[in-house]
């Protein structure tokens, strides 16, 4: 392996900023299997995929983000971009790269973790006694065999019983939410499959599914976890989930709210945290 092959940029996208622990855990998991990960994301690294209605602005965002990754590749030797978000990954492959010269390769986090399966397995020494239903979508398989990659990772965890849930349309829950009724059907399908299979945990793969299903945490005694939470548990790393806790009734502490500016919190964040679950 050439020098610098283990230096990567972890591109977590925009909406993962709701789930700071999942970003931190992903960085820790990369480090545990031997990568030197530098994380970036948020609006300054926007891919532009959510801006189909503003083609010039989306194109400019794509160019800026590719430029920044090119600079990291040439300046820091970080010539691999590790993605989290399937929308960002597909947008980079299908639209950003064909319109901008790139000096880096991409892979999804699940791919590079499962590719280092031996290191991953030896790092996951703590049994995780859960019966888990994996919440799945059919999409993104055009680019990454995401469902089988996550199954490969979770199957290495001692004590964990894994059941693959129904494969829903779309690539993650936010994509089906644009059609009335589709998100509710998706959530209902997953939760009923979990109950029928006597699972105690539903495991999400992507942030948007986690965001939607978090409100159901505890329903029928089924807990919600993301796959990186489960890997972290198996590594003995604390894996808290503030977004899930806020979505089910807790509130951020007052110091955090003040830091975020209370007016902005009340206007922008609280309505999202208090909206009905997808089953209501």
């Amino acid at each position, binding site marked *: 392996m050439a020098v610098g092959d283990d230096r990567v940029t972890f591109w977590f996208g925009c909406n993962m900023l*709701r789930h700071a622990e999942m970003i931190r855990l992903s960085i820790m998991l990369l480090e545990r299997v031997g990568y030197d990960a530098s994380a970036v994301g948020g609006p300054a690294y926007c891919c532009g995929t959510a801006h189909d209605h503003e083609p010039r602005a989306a194109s400019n965002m794509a160019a800026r983000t590719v430029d920044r990754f090119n600079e990291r590749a040439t300046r820091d030797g970080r010539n691999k971009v590790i993605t989290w978000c399937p929308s960002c990954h597909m947008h980079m492959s299908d639209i950003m790269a064909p319109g901008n010269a790139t000096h880096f390769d991409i892979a999804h986090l699940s791919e590079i973790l499962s590719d280092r399966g031996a290191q991953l397995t030896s790092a996951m020494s703590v049994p995780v006694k859960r019966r888990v239903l994996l919440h799945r979508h059919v999409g993104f398989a055009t680019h990454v065999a995401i469902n089988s990659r996550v199954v490969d990772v979770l199957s290495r965890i001692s004590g964990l019983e894994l059941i693959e849930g129904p494969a829903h349309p779309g690539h993650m829950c936010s994509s089906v939410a644009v059609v009335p009724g589709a998100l509710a059907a998706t959530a209902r399908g997953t939760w009923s499959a979990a109950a029928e299979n006597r699972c105690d945990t539903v495991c999400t793969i992507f942030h948007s599914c986690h965001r939607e299903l978090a409100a159901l945490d505890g329903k029928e005694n089924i807990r919600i976890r993301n796959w990186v939470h489960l890997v972290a548990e198996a590594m003995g790393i604390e894996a808290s989930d503030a977004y899930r806790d806020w979505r089910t009734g807790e509130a951020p502490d007052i110091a955090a709210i003040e830091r975020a500016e209370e007016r902005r919190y009340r206007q922008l964040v609280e309505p999202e945290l208090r909206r009905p679950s997808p089953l209501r």
Partner: protein
Amino acid sequence: MSKLQPARSDTSEAFLAQAGLELAALCTACGACFDACPMVDHIGLRDFDSRAATVGLRQLAKGETGSLEAVAWVGACAKSGLCVSACPERSSGLDAMLLVRIAKQHALNDTHQLSVKHDPTYFPRIKTFARLQLTDEELAKWL
């Protein structure tokens, strides 16, 4: 690890303009992508003529007005990707999911058959979530 494809245009916007015409030219409007799409069930179009739907898809991808059914279909695209393997022209280079994406963009921006659902609070909300949770060091290093 995936190698990214080489640049074919100077910008993403230029690439999409070029790709829409190229992909539309490869499309035979056979209807296979429509038949494979799971979102068709959610928008009540399962009994609609799939060939007619894909004629509309091809028109939209070229920037022309498409049928109402074709517009509803591209507007409901959830990136399931089942159209990609269903397309008999895939080996010729037809990426059906990209064709649908480009058709949707034209329906939004050129034929105006889809209404724009712009959320001006999108980035401010994300930034507020970030400030709620990230340390000063994380804010400085990651964003």
